[in-house]
């Protein structure tokens, strides 16, 4: 078998060196009733050609998002990733290396993480960021837990504009760790008065910018209201490219930013693996979950990096750890950091502007369709529209024609059957917009 280097001769020699007659003797501790004589009921070994055929056949039964116009968003965005990114992350020294617990032979990973942490801090306008969490939703749940630890208060208020998956994950975690969540109802196109809800029991308020419906807001006032009451403001960002054009949460007074980094460096991948970004203020760093790369020097005085502040983590604090997180999203963070290194300041700003303009163009064309009305005022690269007929069937019919028209809000909230979330990135062409507009006109007629 191509992945197993031992030969039968090796096995015999090794058994002899160990002093046993057969491999079964090495499994003697397994209770007799649990020993399987024969093979598990699964197919036998196959060569690359056979495995490739079988799995490629499954792949062929999917419609890749890029095979036609794609206007899907709602927490995952189709961007162009430069070819160099995937090429670099597949270098064996990155792809197949372990967590950098032996820093002397992991400076590549550690320096890349230090640069990644810096980029995330700069993008979000915060002071310090960690080396990644699983995704935006779990980062959000960890932010709520952290706010609870920092303030020693039980309550968290979650905006109705926060991504429903992020809300659900927070709710699942809260159910088991005792936090009390106030989940505000989604109100597409309307503003919430969250400041009025903050009291002495509130650990944090969690908002998203842009929100689920694409709306952009200035949260500086809410930040002040939170701080006046001793609570923290958590801002979630589901589309990280927006930070190339929109005022970042750090400049609005956020205490914690929980974001999804998939947009940079990482493919859509049917939902995973993705990349949780987590940033906060320096004063709160010891309450922050996840790994941290820190700068130091070696025995010869040369600059280098190590994992640091590890005493917050599970392998040292065990039941008193800030989180149980161990393995995180290292290679996805590497892809993100390489993509952002290629873009740089000028490239990210231009990319963000191209996204915004693609969405403006799309929104204007859709608004011209009879019965289609925009919801909300300001947006980055995603917006909501109200259709004159239910959105889900319209989207299904357009999918049959190879047009992925957007995410019907009813997929999350059945009480909004006629709302459609439409995202337009730099990958959208004028032809795509034409096909979307024509297609929608037809199915809505």
């Amino acid at each position, binding site marked *: 078998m191509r992945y*197993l280097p031992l030969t039968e001769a*090796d096995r015999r020699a090794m058994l002899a060196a160990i002093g046993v007659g057969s491999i079964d003797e090495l499994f003697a*501790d397994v209770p007799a*009733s*649990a020993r399987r004589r024969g*093979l598990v*009921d*699964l197919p*036998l070994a196959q060569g690359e050609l056979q495995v490739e055929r079988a*799995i490629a056949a*499954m*792949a*062929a039964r999917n*419609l890749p*998002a890029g095979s036609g116009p*794609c206007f*899907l968003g709602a927490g*995952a965005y*189709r961007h162009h990733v430069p070819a*160099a990114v995937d090429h670099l992350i597949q270098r064996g*020294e*990155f*792809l197949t*290396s372990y967590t950098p617990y032996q820093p002397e*032979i992991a400076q*590549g990973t550690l*320096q890349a*993480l230090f640069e990644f942490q*810096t980029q995330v801090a700069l993008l979000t306008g915060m*002071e310090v960021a960690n080396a990644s969490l699983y995704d935006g939703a779990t980062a959000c749940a960890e932010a709520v837990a952290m706010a609870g630890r920092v303030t020693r208060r039980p309550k968290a208020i979650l905006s109705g504009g926060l991504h429903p998956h992020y809300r*659900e994950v927070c709710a*699942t975690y809260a*159910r*088991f760790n005792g936090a009390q969540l106030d989940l505000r109802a989604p109100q597409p196109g309307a503003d919430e008065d969250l400041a009025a809800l903050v009291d002495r029991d509130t650990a944090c308020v969690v908002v998203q910018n842009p929100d689920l419906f694409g709306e952009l807001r*200035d949260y500086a006032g809410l930040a002040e209201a939170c701080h006046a009451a001793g609570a923290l403001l958590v801002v979630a960002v589901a589309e990280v490219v927006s930070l190339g054009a929109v*005022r970042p949460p750090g400049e609005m007074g956020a205490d914690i930013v929980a974001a*999804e980094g998939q947009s940079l460096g990482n493919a859509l*991948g*049917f*939902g*995973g693996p993705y990349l949780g970004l987590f940033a906060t203020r320096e004063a709160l760093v010891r309450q922050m979950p996840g790994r941290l790369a*820190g*700068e*130091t*020097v070696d*025995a010869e005085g040369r600059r280098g990096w190590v994992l640091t502040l590890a005493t917050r983590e599970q392998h040292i604090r*065990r*039941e*008193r750890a800030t989180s*149980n997180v*161990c*393995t995180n999203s290292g290679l996805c963070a590497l892809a993100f950091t390489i993509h952002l*290194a290629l873009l*740089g300041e*000028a490239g990210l700003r231009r990319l963000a502007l191209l996204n915004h303009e693609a969405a403006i163009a799309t929104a204007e064309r859709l608004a011209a369709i009879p019965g289609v009305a925009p919801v909300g*005022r*300001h947006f980055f690269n995603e917006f909501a529209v109200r259709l004159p007929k239910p959105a889900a069937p319209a989207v*299904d019919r357009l*999918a049959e024609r190879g047009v992925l028209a957007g*995410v019907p809000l009813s997929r999350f909230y059945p009480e909004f059957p006629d709302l459609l979330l439409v995202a337009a990135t730099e990958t959208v062409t004028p032809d795509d917009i034409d096909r979307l507009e024509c297609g929608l006109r037809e199915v809505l007629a």
Partner: protein
Amino acid sequence: MTVTGNRGLQLEEKLLFEQDSPGHCGVDLPAPAGLPNRLGGLERTRPIGLPGLSEPQVVRHYTRLSQKNYAIDSGLYPLGSCTMKHNPRLNEKLARLPGFADLHPLQPVSTVQGALELIDTLAHWLKALTGLPAVALSPAAGAHGELCGMMTIRAALSARGDARRRILVPESAHGTNPATAAACGYAIDNIPNNPRGRVDLAALKARLDGDVAALMLTNPNTCGLFEDEILEIAAAVHGAGAFFYCDGANFNAIVGRVRPADLGIDALHLNLHKTFSTPHGGGGPGSGPVALAAELAPFAPLPWIVHGAAGRDLVERPEGPAAASIGRLKAFHGQMGMFVRALAYMMSHGADGLRQVAEDAVLNANYLRARLAGTLSQAYPGTCMHEVLFDDRFLKDTGVTTLDLAKALIDEGFHPMTMYFPLVVHGALLIEPTETESKASLDQFADALLALAARARGGDAESLRAAPRLAPRRRLDETAAARKPVLRWRPPAA
């Protein structure tokens, strides 16, 4: 010394931020049209502070960084409980097929039937290998899987009106176990090991009562030993009305030869990035699916994949068959990219190959034991499973610690073994070669380790304490890094 600081192929490399060409860009993008924006006055006005570089500079930067990393592609990682095995490249190719990589998670379900089929197929393989009837695929890593398992247990007990407050965890457990139990709202009771390196059955029974929700056990355990009293343990746990959770990090020792269901296990997480070869990537992404017994299956997290008249569908709300689900643990559907890789791995090996994996893994570890146990002090003498545990008694009075020995291994071209874990022995050295190491590779490792041990016992503590000397960096000052943390680059003060 050289002018550049470089040493042949070992090239120094500054931070990205120290190579900024302002305005430069490694991506050519079209000029924006200059439309009036719709950002509502929330434009980002201040500079972000990101450096600008061209593509050649970026490629060189990351190529140089990669050359400072050890990796399984380069050499053996004898890391106990990490299962650092070869990462097959076929898996990378298949994960990148556009039919998987370019799928949006919220596309209409009719357009992703192949993806749902792949996830279902993976679930089928995991159920067959574990003997358990259900599998929750969304957890993103082992620790996340542990959380999932503990949450389903707590939900199941709650549904029976039998809320309990304690979890039993062996002293030798990986830190994620008690951290997870605490995250789930439980108090932790530590169970000591017996002199044979297994969990102390009498102590366990003494702690078992109607207030214990579950035992979290690793099997084979973190000392590399099969818990041979596991059937009695399972009976005792179930007799007390509690659940038996197994940390499946060490599944590589028994895959294809033993099914956890046959050991009385109710819930078990698997690490696709350990047993099933998905790459470690310098710290993730992983994937931690959880196999569940029938009693726990109704509480599995969302989404569920179900079969309908029109093909497969996703249940994304706690209703119908999923009404009792604990809810969502992650956005979207799980670590799809790792599912493709793991399934390709499993299909490549097949039932026969997977059984051979466990046998070769156990054989390799015992071969190292045979070569090393005469010199190093094995913590629990006798046969081990896929990993072998030594303590630092053999270094007594040498002035050399486990850490020094490990750092000296670096100069010999090896990543050190797991050190100081498990905590139940002093100065632990936990060695797991995995089945993808050849006999020659094992012999070279054993030769090096024996030579270092001989140097330590021969009185040469000085050179070992100065190690490593040949790696891209010498020992780094972790105290300074923790006392005055510098966690990001900042521009030098003007």
